[in-house]
């Protein structure tokens, strides 16, 4: 049983519908670029203002965890791209397995992140009343860095969690034969979303973890 493109009534044809979905998703991703962009902008300003303070914080960043997470997300992007490809050629089983793999890798990412957050909490590096920084001269500015760290990775993690939810939805839909080579748009679109969240991390990692490791 092949699933047919589900043509919504207000579209003239499937091509118009697909073009609309694609443009719509890219516009949404552009909004996400601007959303994260505000935090990248704040980070840039404060890093150029307080280079030593920011560099000093990198000693307390878990580079191994960060690098591992970067690898995990890159793997998940590969599996996601392969999943979209599987949908495109109608390979339902491969699609489902690749989606499950992507989902698993996403959860690994979140697990490692959770471990890192716990580490930070124990080290008193969470901004707020319990904040305490080892190098007193940089404490004030380091607190701003940690604030941005939690804001940026936190918002990123929320996007990952949403992505995980979307993947679960795709897996359920795929196992119910909703997709075929003729129509797999949600897989394609959610793939775009997933890759975007990966790209955000690709920039977050060097900015937050790799400053001043030579010192």
């Amino acid at each position, binding site marked *: 049983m092949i699933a047919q493109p589900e043509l919504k009534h207000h579209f003239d044809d499937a091509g118009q519908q697909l073009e609309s979905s*694609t443009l719509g998703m890219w516009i949404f991703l552009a909004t996400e*670029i601007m959303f994260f962009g505000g935090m990248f902008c704040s980070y840039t300003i404060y890093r150029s203002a307080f280079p030593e303070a920011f560099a000093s914080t990198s000693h307390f960043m878990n580079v191994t965890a960060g690098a591992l997470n970067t690898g995990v997300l*890159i793997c998940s*992007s590969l599996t996601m791209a392969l999943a979209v*490809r599987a949908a495109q050629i109608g390979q339902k089983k491969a699609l489902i397995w690749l989606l499950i793999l992507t989902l698993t890798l996403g959860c690994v990412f979140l697990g490692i992140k959770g471990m890192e957050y716990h580490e930070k909490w124990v080290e008193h590096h969470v901004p707020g009343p319990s904040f305490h920084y080892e190098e007193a001269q940089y404490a004030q500015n380091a607190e701003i860095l940690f604030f941005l760290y939690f804001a940026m990775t936190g918002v990123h993690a929320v996007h990952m969690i949403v992505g995980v939810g979307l993947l679960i939805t795709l897996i359920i839909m795929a196992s119910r034969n909703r997709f075929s080579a003729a129509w797999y748009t949600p897989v394609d679109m959610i793939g775009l979303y997933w890759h975007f969240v990966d790209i955000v991390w690709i920039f977050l990692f060097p900015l937050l973890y790799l400053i001043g*490791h*030579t010192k």
Partner: protein
Amino acid sequence: MSHPVVAIKVYVGVFLALITLTVTTVAVSKIELGEYNFIVAMTIAVIKGSLVVWFFMHVKQASSMTKLFVAAGFFWLGIMLVFVLSDYVSRGWLPRGVWWHS
């Protein structure tokens, strides 16, 4: 069909490039290059991001309109960064006005 089927080896090739670049960026961060550490790290990040956009997100095969939308998104972020930075960078050009120095 939105785009022709891409061979698996293309995806795997991009994946390996991304992993290699990640290892590189971590390795380079341990070498003292002064100002250039940041530039190298950002250049590598841009290359990695571009690979994901171009291949994984199929922008290579997308319509010109899609490419324009993608470019516009990053360009707008550029506007924010450049113009905000222009304020902070040029504050030191007058005797008064730099808030983070005394």
